């Protein structure tokens, strides 16, 4: 059974159709890349999955449960964690507190105490190598550090599905390779985590995804194994004749 | 008999409503452009009233002529407060702008109190009245109503026929996009804030025609609440919505007063004010984007 299933999702903003009849399936433990040019609807799709917006049409099914109109705060504990394209840290709280919030409210049991959450936070922060910045207010981090912090915050939720919205934009290529390796490792170790990602950065997509979904002007145009998808002429065309690097 | 009284009151309500509407346009303009709620709104109305009072009593100047003067005073205050305070808070949390405008309101009240004292005052402008059968309308109120409509139309023309107006409109629609297209967004913010305050202070002049002896440094509080109800009725960010919201509010206020007066043992005036508070909550609950807006 698939972990996440979107059926014919349409999301409009006024007259603009940001996501147009998109259906897709993601199975447990799968690594999926979602790509597409600017404005193609990737972030909107994430917002529909995490409950920031409700779609006008279609259904969102997670773990066998219809969550199309479920409040976002009830989705997180089901196992949907995410990061934001433009980082949204709780600025005045420390990095440690930020990550602890993920563990405290985002886990399935919902019964993680404050102290336990702080412990989980410490461990997770170490994994993303932010321990030096642990007690800094999250607002004071650099953009890249904020993205790492968001990854840690989402991981602390012990998600089954981790939605990373351009989490590696702005990182140095070497760091991206490291990051990809790290996320893969966690995803495999924890067995539960599925990483789906939205990247302009083909390097990360190629290094990580087993399957690539390509969006263009809100519609899904390709859904295929990575290599096949990236060689698809439609994809090349969408990227205006700039074939993927490497 | 009762129906006649009701009709009379409703006509009075429309006349007052037009002025209410105009008095709210500045609030909506500022919210629409800067996303700032001017909690000190009523204090600027009060400033307009004092401008009128002073021009009339000290210099014998006709209240109609006080409108442009008040508008200029308001623009000036608007620019001052924008550049000293608001500009630094555009990106700050909402709490900051709410409290800043709130404090600016208090500051104005206290300054006016310091200068003019806190007793109730008024002026006596004799221009006659007309009897339209169901009710008697003082000419001054009629002038205020006509003045409001003219100002609303001027604002409409300014928005649609001038460069500065369309720049402001583009900022309302999409400030990032406007910036990319070369619009001076900071300038548009300053101008809109000043214009909004200018309109509000000018409306204070027109409102004095309804409160012959009600001019007082703290008179603004009630208008702030009414302006919020009206703005929310009209969709909060649209000056024209606000104008029509004002008309609706004038009707409701006068209509409900007439009805409450029929209930024995209550104070109808206090109940109308309670009603405006209930309306505010109800509208916000049902449709925060405004009952009269299409969005």
């Amino acid at each position, binding site marked *: 059974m698939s972990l996440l299933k979107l059926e014919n999702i349409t999301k409009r903003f006024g007259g603009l159709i940001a996501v147009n009849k998109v259906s897709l399936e993601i199975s447990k433990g799968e690594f999926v890349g979602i790509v597409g040019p600017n404005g193609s609807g990737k972030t909107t799709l994430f917002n529909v999955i995490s*409950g*920031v917006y409700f779609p006008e049409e279609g259904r969102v099914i997670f773990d066998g449960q219809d969550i199309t109109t479920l409040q*976002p*705060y009830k*989705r*997180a*504990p089901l196992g949907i964690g*995410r990061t934001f394209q433009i980082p*949204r*840290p*709780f600025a*005045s*709280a420390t990095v440690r*507190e930020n990550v602890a*919030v993920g563990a*405290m*409210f*985002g*886990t399935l049991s*919902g019964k993680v105490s*404050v102290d336990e*959450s702080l412990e989980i936070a410490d461990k997770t922060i170490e994994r993303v190598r932010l321990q030096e910045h642990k007690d800094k207010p999250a607002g004071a981090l650099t953009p890249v550090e904020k993205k790492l912090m968001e990854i840690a*915050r989402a991981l602390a*939720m012990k998600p089954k599905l981790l939605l990373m919205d351009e989490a590696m934009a702005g990182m140095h290529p070497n760091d991206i390779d490291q990051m990809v390796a790290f996320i893969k490792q966690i995803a495999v170790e924890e067995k539960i985590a599925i990483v789906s990602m939205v990247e302009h950065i083909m390097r990360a997509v190629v290094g990580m995804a087993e399957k690539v979904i390509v969006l263009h002007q809100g519609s899904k145009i390709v859904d295929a194994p990575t290599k096949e998808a990236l060689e698809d002429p439609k994809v090349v065309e969408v990227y205006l004749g700039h074939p993927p690097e490497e | 008999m009762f129906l006649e009284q009701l009709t009379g009151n409703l006509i009075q309500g429309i006349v007052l409503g037009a002025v209410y509407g105009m008095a709210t346009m500045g609030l909506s303009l500022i919210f629409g452009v800067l*996303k700032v*709620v001017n*909690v000190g709104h009523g204090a600027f109305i009060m400033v307009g009233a004092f401008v009128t009072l002073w021009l009339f009593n000290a210099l014998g100047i006709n209240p109609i002529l006080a409108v442009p003067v008040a508008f200029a005073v308001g623009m000036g205050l608007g620019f001052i407060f924008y550049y000293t*305070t608001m500009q630094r*808070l555009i990106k*700050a949390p*909402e*709490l*900051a702008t*709410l*409290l*800043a405008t709130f*404090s*600016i309101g*208090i*500051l104005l*009240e*206290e*300054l006016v*109190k310091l200068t003019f004292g806190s007793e109730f005052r008024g002026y006596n402008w004799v221009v006659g009245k007309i009897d339209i059968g169901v009710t008697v309308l003082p000419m001054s109120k009629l002038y205020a109503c006509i003045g409001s409509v003219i100002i609303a139309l001027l604002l409409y023309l300014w928005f649609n026929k001038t460069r500065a107006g369309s720049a402001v409109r583009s900022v309302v629609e999409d400030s990032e996009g406007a910036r990319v297209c070369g619009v001076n967004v900071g300038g548009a913010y300053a101008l809109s804030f000043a214009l909004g305050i200018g309109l509000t202070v000018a409306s204070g002049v027109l409102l004095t025609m309804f409160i012959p002896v009600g001019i007082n440094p703290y008179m603004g*509080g009630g208008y*702030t*609440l009414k302006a*919020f109800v009206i703005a929310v009725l009209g969709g909060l960010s649209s000056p024209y919505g606000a104008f029509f919201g004002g008309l609706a509010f004038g009707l409701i206020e006068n209509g409900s007063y007439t009805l409450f007066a029929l209930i024995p*043992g*209550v*104070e109808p005036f*206090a*109940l109308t*004010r*309670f009603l405006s*508070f209930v309306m*505010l*909550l109800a509208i*916000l609950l049902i449709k*925060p984007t405004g009952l009269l807006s299409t969005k």
Partner: protein
Amino acid sequence: MKKEITKYYPLIPVFTAYLFLFLVGKNISGMWQLVAMLLFYCAMGQAFNIFLGMTGYVDFGYVAFMGVGTYGMALAITNLAHIEGLGIGIIIIGFILALLMSTLLSMAVGAVALRLRGAYFAIATIGVNEGFRFLIEGARIWNGSEGLIFTAQLNQILGREAASSLMTYWADIMVLFIAALAAFVTLFYMRSKIGYALTALREDEDAAKVMGINVTKYKITAFITSACFAGLVGATSWALKTPYVFPPEVFEIHYTIEAIIIVLLGGAGTLLGPVVGGLIYGISKYYLSIFMPGFQLLIFAPIIIIIIVLFPEGVVGMLKSRTKGSVLARFII
């Protein structure tokens, strides 16, 4: 267990300040009146901070909760004074009624207003105090605009002497306890999930929701808690100290303004902030009213603007960042 105790260290400076106030008032003659006023401001700030400071939402109608709290105590005394032998029990009933009424009002207001975000919330609350006042006056509830005067009933039930020492001394002691209790609850919230949830939603409500936080639940919790303390402050500082209540006085927006100044001055969302803010505000107001009567607001309005623009973290906020990493940091939050 030791860890549990260190968690509550930040109460030490707060309680020390209150103890100090008490000792000054008790031992230096002629100071009690000033001390009583300072305690009132600290308690009000402490109560308001639980909502304004911890959620970042501005409730312009806050004084309404103090107002209904005052009515709660007033109604208990006026209606139950004839019952023989109730004695001091009547005051306990008054407190319960005050709590009940402020809880109910905050639930009613919260149910509507807390669905709204930021500016819309502020707009919704701006009329609450006036609205409630006009309801009481307009519909002639609880004696309408004439208000309630219950000095005689208080004298009758407690005896003249006890009633007078209640008004001039014990009521202030009760305010002190309310302020201390509010501080304790604030810290308890800060150290529990509620505090984490409130910080998260104050910083970014949408992100907080996506992290699994039921923001409405936590906002309502903070709102009701804050309203309850406001009700207690009203019941004590207003109803018991001055045994009468008039609608325009207890729904006067002026007090909301003072509460905002105190919280901002001290540092919104900090534990020690309301104490510092209350002391600074109260002392300066006291001396300003002696030396420049009638000018307090003229002076305080620009001060709020300056704080917002230049020192948005307030005094304790600044202290906090200064002491970061030192031993003091454990005590100052």
